[in-house]
């Protein structure tokens, strides 16, 4: 794995602070030299409700895809309901375009363990699983070594930090299936069952989760942020971000830019244009921008010349609607949502004018066709149809109404499935065919 280049002046590396240090190693001693476990110790001096209040005030939103407020999610757990509670950390990292959790899991495992300890103490959890995708073949050994080290120090296991609190953490490897990133599929996977997402309601695993007990599922990066909320204090942490979306967010940029990579930026500190041109070095020589997928392959594509109506605070502080160009979109959850897409897992895929949009959509359609778990008929059948249609369009054998047909199939998946994979699979097709209608029309009906 490549080491991170030196930070851009706009970056503020909190989660990636350690791994940016020269010669940083994933062992306990190195972590301790970098302020490791200070906040875990601090947590035991606080009241659990106080910690939840801090996480809420910090405006931390989940970094796994849905940007759900973490403090609110935690608030669903009733600490003293007499039931067992569990934590499942989502390290499945399989949303195309996303490559940040990989770095934490391999290079700074103790930071994650510290976040887990704080979370578990807060929510009265004594058993936690770290779910990682099995393609991270070395991560399991790295995490298990870190767990052993922490146990030997009394930071995990029985009576941790001498506080009379027990906590066991184990690593659970997946089997190469994207669907296991969906939180209820992940739970079924840990239970050893065929990982079909669960029927909702209940909408939150905090009601019925692992082994039908209240469970918190959070992304790896989300859990790491908790340490820094306690370290900086919620006010300071929230201040880095925008209203309702605090802290830093690790942006993963890939595709047609000069310097793809991970960039940890205060939420809302830069616009899309600054990210691509100032931070990522712009496009390849002689190229112009065509499209951007802003939050992982499942988020709706944005077209280079689109103008969005986005509400921003005006001179008197009141929110006014402003016409905003793609490159002027501020990178926070609310602004990207206002542009009709989502910040998702903050995975920005950039496409320049050399790219064929039918080809790009077909690539994604093949992904969803391969990854549908097959539980719901509209999704199981629909994703395959979409993939077949875009494939035949590319091969030049399509029908004139193929773009419309693609859109119709997508419309009949979204909203008709048990889990959000249905939307994830439909949004690319809906947005590509709408926004690049001319290109799809030109590719259709060639026979």
């Amino acid at each position: 794995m490549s080491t991170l280049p030196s930070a851009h002046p706009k970056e503020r590396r909190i989660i990636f602070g350690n791994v940016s240090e020269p010669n940083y190693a994933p062992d306990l001693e190195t972590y301790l030299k970098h302020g490791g476990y200070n906040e875990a110790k601090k947590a035991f001096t606080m009241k659990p409700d106080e910690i939840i209040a801090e996480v809420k005030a910090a405006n931390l939103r989940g970094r796994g895809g849905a940007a759900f407020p973490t403090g609110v999610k935690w608030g669903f757990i009733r600490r003293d309901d007499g039931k067992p509670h569990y934590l499942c950390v989502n390290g499945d990292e399989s949303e195309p375009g996303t490559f940040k959790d990989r770095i934490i899991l391999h290079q700074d495992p103790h930071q994650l363990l510290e976040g887990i300890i704080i979370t578990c103490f807060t929510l009265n959890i004594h058993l936690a699983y770290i779910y990682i995708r099995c393609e991270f073949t070395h991560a399991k050994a790295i995490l298990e070594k870190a767990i052993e080290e922490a146990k030997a120090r009394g930071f995990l296991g029985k009576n941790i930090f001498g506080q009379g609190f027990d906590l066991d953490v184990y690593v659970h490897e997946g089997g190469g299936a994207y669907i296991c990133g969906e939180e209820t599929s992940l739970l079924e996977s840990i239970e050893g069952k065929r990982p079909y997402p669960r029927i909702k309601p209940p909408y939150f695993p905090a009601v019925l989760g692992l082994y039908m007990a209240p469970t918190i599922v959070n992304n790896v990066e989300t859990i790491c942020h908790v340490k820094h909320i306690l370290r900086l204090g919620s006010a300071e942490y929230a201040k880095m971000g925008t209203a309702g979306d605090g802290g830093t967010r690790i942006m993963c940029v890939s595709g047609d830019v000069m310097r793809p990579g991970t960039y940890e930026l205060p939420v809302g500190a830069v616009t899309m244009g600054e990210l691509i041109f100032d931070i990522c070095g712009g496009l390849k020589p002689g190229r112009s921008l065509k499209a951007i997928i802003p939050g992982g392959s499942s988020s709706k594509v944005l077209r280079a010349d689109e103008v969005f109506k986005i509400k921003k605070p005006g001179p008197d502080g009141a929110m006014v609607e402003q016409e905003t160009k793609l490159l002027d979109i501020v990178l926070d959850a609310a602004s990207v949502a206002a542009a009709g897409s989502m910040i998702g897992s903050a995975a920005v895929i950039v496409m320049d004018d050399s790219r064929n949009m039918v080809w790009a959509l077909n690539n994604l359609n093949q992904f969803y066709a391969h990854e549908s778990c097959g539980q719901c008929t509209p999704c199981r059948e629909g994703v395959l149809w979409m993939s077949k249609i875009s494939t035949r369009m590319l091969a030049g054998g399509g029908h004139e109404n193929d773009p419309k047909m693609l859109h119709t199939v997508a419309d009949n998946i979204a909203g008709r499935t048990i889990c959000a994979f249905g939307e994830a699979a439909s949004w690319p097709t809906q947005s590509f065919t709408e926004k690049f209608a001319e290109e799809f029309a030109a590719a259709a009906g060639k026979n």
Partner: protein
Amino acid sequence: MGLIMTLTPVTQSSQIPPALLEKIEEAITHYPVSKRSAALPLMHLWQNHFGYIDESGIEWIAAKLELQPIAILEIVTFYPWFRQTAPGKTIIRVCRTLSCAMAGSYELHDQLCKATGIDSAAGHDHGLPTSPDGKFSVEFVECLASCGTAPVCMINNDLVEKVTPADITTIVAQHS
């Protein structure tokens, strides 16, 4: 009446070494609430040791976890990572998804298949596409969470980033 000879293949479950058994017992302890949860970990241990999971493996794991064999079979067939037939000695997984495809992963896959003598159009519904000499399996996989260093592939357990045509020659030579 002629003599009917049946060849009894050596089953995997008749060859479990003590070290593997020890790891299996340890993995089960990670799931104090439900033994069934150890299904995936046991499948990983099994496949890491034997290279794939045969019928005896499915039955053995099921019996170990007090399940019907179908409970294991239905997850062996669900997850792309698991296989029921022997793969090549070196397994190469090429990322197929968008960022890698934009960086040339289809060409990479073609080149790898050509260099190892594998039909690049072969699907993997019936085991991994494997070279006739059994030295290589090459398959397309979905996003490996390393899109910033596309195109990427995995050579057995190791990730290779920013793969170039020259790398392919080296990789194939090294593992031949």
